């Protein structure tokens, strides 16, 4: 795991290339503290902050092919690199290292953009042709690894994290009210949205090819939902077991120790069990517990760790800890967040690294693949509303969101009326998410005069052929795979927090074979109202019964309550009218009333949408301070080993210099 950065220059003097790339890498050094390497040529520069995991001794980057013409800066892991290497060797490719970086470079040179669908893993890379100045940027299909780019004068900048662009003193971040309204309403950005004007995120499974003035972004590796159905329940369970086992085996390919994040739920328990079975020894496990018993899952975590005999480590989080970490965590996240649950992950990563573990596995992606979220049940309920009698409707409504106060037995009558209304599609294609998005409209009120916040997502879904072809539940999956998963779970709550401390997280449920196994069995052997039923049954014999039968417990952290418990100085940014005026796109009156309410009302009286909107507001003002006002903590330049190919003849290896 690493961070990549670089730029292509269309018409500028290469004199400052070395210091610029070194400064960009300094901004993302937390992602790869083991080494910083770069290459500068007459067309630009690329570089890598490296966290060494595979072929620790020989994996220095950027790396070139044997001709010295093509150079790669690569972030991530391709787990099937061993198989791809064999395939490429059969085609005549010769390899100098056993590092997956070289496999990815050769795969691109051999298959071009089609290689992306063959790469199983989480990755982002840049490949520069120093003969022509052509540049390719590419990213994995799940959005496991980030890659942002922006046009800046006569340069194209790219990096794993946007903060690297601050290495250019004149680069100006501007928050984009239209994108912010979309993020607020959807809970998360679309895969290309960042919240900043002119800064884009590469699409999932997409690549951007730049040859002088010709820019082409295309989506190459799609997410398949069309697996052949399993013939019966027994074979469905066997397929799930074998796909997951294989996926975990692939993700254990590492030259360093692999740990497991244990949430207390089913998914990470399955992963930890499989790691133990495959390696013959339990992994170190890491968990978050909360002082607030209503959020805490530590009994289930301890039970699972004990069942494995694992060395288990826990970081206990109090509400005030969330408030204390929020500003540094959101600066790592870079994107406005709708809940505080990402902040404890920042401490969890620190704990993990302190115990010498650089790679972890976790259960992300299981709920999307195996229909684990209540949202899928809600979609099924509303889709079939007209066909059900009142008794069935009530029973299912009552079981839908038991952790939400307003889904209790006393409120079923008005809820029935509400669901009746939402049993008919209003936003074309977005039926599954309409109740959630209704809630999001409240947050969008933070943006003054916001236009229709769903314009971009409506356009994206209307243009996608795969989306049009599937039914309501798969549309819901499609939306989850493109919004909440990449836009928050894998990024803000996932790799941005783990890589703040140089820890790489891997997700065995985000594997094409695992998703195919889920597609083969979802809704074929049950009605979908017992979440992840077949996944539970597939591992029922190898997990404690209480874990197998445990209902999904949404991972949450204190939101507004955190800022009532601990009041950081920077809260002034939302409490002072003068500070709010610095963000003229905000509805200051609404923001002010919301902040006052969130910080003074009894926590029980603060609704979920108010919590969400308040956390969004805090994120936006902090990101404004860090990026627009450039108040991010300074990043001292780290020694960067630079291969200097400026004015060097092609095929030469240039000179090595160390930029300090």
């Amino acid at each position, binding site marked *: 795991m690493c961070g990549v950065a670089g730029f292509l220059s269309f018409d500028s003097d290469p004199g400052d290339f070395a210091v610029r790339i070194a400064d960009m890498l300094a901004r993302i050094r937390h992602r790869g503290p083991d080494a910083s390497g770069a290459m500068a040529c007459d067309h630009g520069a690329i570089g890598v902050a490296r966290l060494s995991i595979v072929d620790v001794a020989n994996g220095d980057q950027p790396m070139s092919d044997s001709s010295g013409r093509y150079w790669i800066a690569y972030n991530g892991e391709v787990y099937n690199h061993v198989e791809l290497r064999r395939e490429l060797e059969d085609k005549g490719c010769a390899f100098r290292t056993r590092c997956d970086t070289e496999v990815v470079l050769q795969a691109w040179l051999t298959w071009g953009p089609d290689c992306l669908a063959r790469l199983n893993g989480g990755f982002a890379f840049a490949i520069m042709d120093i003969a022509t100045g052509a540049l390719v940027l590419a990213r994995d299909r799940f959005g496991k690894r980030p890659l942002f780019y922006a046009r800046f004068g006569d340069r194209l900048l790219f990096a794993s994290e946007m903060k690297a662009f601050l290495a250019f003193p004149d680069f100006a971040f501007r928050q984009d009210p239209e994108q912010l309204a979309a993020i607020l309403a959807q809970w998360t950005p679309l895969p290309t949205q960042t919240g900043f004007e002119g800064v884009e995120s590469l699409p999932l499974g997409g690549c951007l090819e730049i040859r002088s003035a010709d820019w082409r972004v295309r989506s190459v590796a799609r997410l398949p939902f069309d697996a052949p159905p399993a013939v019966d329940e027994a074979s469905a369970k066997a397929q799930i077991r074998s796909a997951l086992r294989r996926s975990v085996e692939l993700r254990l390919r590492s030259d360093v120790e692999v740990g497991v994040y244990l949430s207390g739920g089913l998914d990470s328990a399955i992963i930890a069990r499989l790691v133990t079975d495959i390696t013959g020894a339990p992994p170190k496990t890491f968990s978050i517990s909360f002082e607030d018993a209503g959020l805490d899952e530590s009994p289930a975590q301890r039970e699972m760790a004990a069942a494995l005999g694992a060395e288990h480590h826990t970081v206990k989080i109090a509400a005030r800890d969330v408030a204390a970490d929020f500003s540094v965590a959101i600066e790592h996240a870079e994107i406005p967040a709708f809940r505080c649950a990402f902040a404890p992950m920042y401490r969890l990563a620190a704990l993990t690294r302190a115990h010498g573990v650089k790679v972890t596995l976790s259960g992300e992606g299981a709920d999307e693949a195996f229909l684990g979220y209540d949202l899928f049940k809600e979609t099924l309920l509303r889709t079939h509303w007209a066909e059900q009698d009142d008794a069935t409707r009530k029973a299912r409504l009552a079981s839908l969101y038991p952790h939400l106060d*307003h889904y209790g037995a006393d409120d079923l009558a008005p809820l029935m009326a509400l669901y009746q209304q939402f049993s008919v599609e209003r936003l074309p294609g977005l039926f599954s998410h309409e109740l959630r998005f209704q809630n999001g409209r409240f947050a969008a009120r933070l943006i003054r005069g916001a236009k229709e916040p769903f314009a971009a997502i409506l356009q994206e879904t209307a243009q996608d052929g795969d989306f049009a072809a599937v039914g309501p539940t798969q549309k819901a999956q499609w939306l989850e795979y493109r919004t909440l998963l990449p836009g928050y779970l894998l990024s803000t709550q996932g790799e941005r927090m783990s890589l703040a401390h140089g820890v790489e997280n891997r997700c065995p449920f985000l594997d094409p074979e695992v998703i195919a196994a889920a597609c083969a069995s979802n809704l074929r052997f049950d009605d979908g109202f017992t979440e992840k039923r077949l996944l539970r049954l597939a591992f029922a014999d190898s997990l404690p019964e209480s874990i197998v039968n445990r209902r999904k417990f949404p991972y949450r952290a204190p939101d507004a309550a955190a800022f009532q418990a601990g009041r950081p100085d920077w809260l002034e940014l939302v409490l002072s009218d003068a500070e709010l005026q610095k963000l003229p796109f905000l509805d200051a009156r609404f923001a002010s009333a919301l902040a006052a309410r969130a910080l003074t009302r009894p926590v029980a009286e603060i609704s979920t949408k108010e919590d969400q909107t308040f956390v969004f507001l805090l994120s936006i003002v902090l990101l404004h301070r860090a990026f627009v006002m450039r108040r991010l903590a300074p990043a001292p330049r780290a020694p960067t080993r630079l291969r200097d190919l400026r004015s060097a003849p092609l095929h030469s290896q240039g000179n090595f210099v160390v930029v300090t």
Partner: protein
Amino acid sequence: MTDADFRQKLRGFIEERFLVTFDADFPEDSDLFREGVMDSFGYIQLHRFIESEFGIAFTESELAKGVLVSLTQFQDYVGRRLDLQTDAHTIPRA
């Protein structure tokens, strides 16, 4: 309770709970769902308020006719129900 009283109570509840001010830009007949003021939680809160404040229980058959979406609609509904309740008390049982 006068007509103006309960209308003001409803308006005050929505303004306080949903952080909104009714005025020329945001008239009382605005669709509270469409404008992002009310979600499912707010909708249930408002029903609970009407039940506790005015003693009005919503029946399933009434609710099945359609969801009320604006302050005006809620005010008119409560007005009708209060009139009905008054009538019910004044009509002697047979």
